């Protein structure tokens, strides 16, 4: 990948949005890229929507503020409504289909549906939904190497073995799901 890639992750507070974004950012650094992680902050985080934006670039990163990201990963309905329309044409939208029972009719973006909560619950830890989406995002974009993501997850979330295993499992599931989905199609 060349140039700059921006992704916004959004959902309810407590869905692991911020963590997923940070894991992506750490991965970027590991691969020697420039990264910026910018959270939404403040009281509205209580219950309301929480979101963060990750910018990954080969060049020096200018504005940390991204109104129109290359991609959006949305975990709940309010986030879907708020962020999907903002995605750049030609961009990517990853939808947590476990909680969002709708899809975008935008024809100028690639849309991938990931039953994240379901995958996570089946794997044995509802909290891992964010990792499933992260996997799908990496699969769809190839922005970073999935192995690097694994290493980062091992470093950052490796305390409890069982939890780690669940995370790595859903990561792969999300990743493969995205690859399967795109099939021949080149990555976005």
């Amino acid at each position, binding site marked *: 990948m060349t140039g700059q890639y921006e992704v916004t992750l959004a959902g309810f507070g407590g869905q692991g949005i911020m963590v997923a974004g940070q894991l992506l950012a750490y991965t970027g650094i590991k691969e020697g890229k420039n990264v910026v992680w910018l959270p939404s902050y403040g*009281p*509205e985080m*209580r*219950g*309301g929507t929480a979101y963060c934006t990750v910018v990954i670039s080969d060049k020096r990163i200018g504005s940390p503020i991204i109104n129109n990201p290359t991609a959006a990963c949305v975990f709940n309905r309010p986030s879907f409504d708020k962020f999907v329309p903002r995605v750049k044409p030609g961009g990517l939208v990853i939808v947590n289909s476990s909680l969002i029972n709708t899809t975008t009719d935008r024809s100028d973006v690639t849309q991938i549906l990931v039953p994240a909560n379901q995958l996570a619950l089946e794997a044995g830890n509802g909290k891992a939904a964010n990792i499933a989406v992260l996997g799908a995002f990496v699969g769809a974009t190839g922005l970073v190497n999935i192995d690097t993501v694994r290493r980062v997850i091992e470093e950052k979330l490796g305390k409890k073995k069982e939890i780690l295993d669940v995370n790595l499992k859903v990561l792969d599931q999300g990743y493969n799901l995205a690859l399967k989905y795109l099939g021949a199609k080149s990555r976005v």
Partner: protein
Amino acid sequence: MSLDAMKATFTRPESLTDAVTHYCPGCTHGVIHRLVAESLDELGLRERTVGVAPVGCSVLAYNYFNCDFLESPHGRAPALATGFKRLRPDMIVFTYQGDGDLASIGMAEIVHAANRGEKFTTIFVNNAIYGMTGGQMAPTTLPGQVTTTSPRGRNVKEVGMPIRMVELLATLATPAYLERVSVHSPQQIIRAKAAIKRAFAYQEAGRCFSLIEVLSTCPTNWGKTPTEATQWLNENIIPYYPMRVFKTPPEAGNE
């Protein structure tokens, strides 16, 4: 016959708006709001009441109460209330303050307002932590209690013991009504309601300054479920913060 058609025995007080609060699930700020609103309704004070919002999770109280409101700088609500009430003694004024707001940065303002005997009412919501800013230590934080600025638990050798505000204010010679209550169970909520209503009654009669300290939960920053939080309050906070009337004004006349 449908429920709606039946006589309603418990409904939303008129002094509360319909707004859904921004409070976290199970946060008892909401209960305390309702008790104040019910008191204003029952005493018929809403239309001549002005509330003063603090800086704290209840900063947006002005969106939830159905009366005029001022929004104060952090800790200074008693000064705003003093300024307002001195010019409009005919109106009812209350401040609604958290423990960081009142007991930390606002210590001087509450002590002096109480000592001057300003005729307003203060609802002091003590949840032993800074809620809005994400769970820092408050002057009221219990010994050993873990917060983001006391990650190893409050070390009383280093930062001293929790401050009991009503006890401190009770030493002032100026007449006042001071009581501590809690809202962690229906029984306590009923007692809390009585105290809050009594405070407003004293104010309406122009009798004295009144402050009700209400022990409240902060599930989010205590890292507990709402149910766990009420239990924790009962088992840990109440033993250090006795609930009783600490001061009442002398009988009208013999003041």
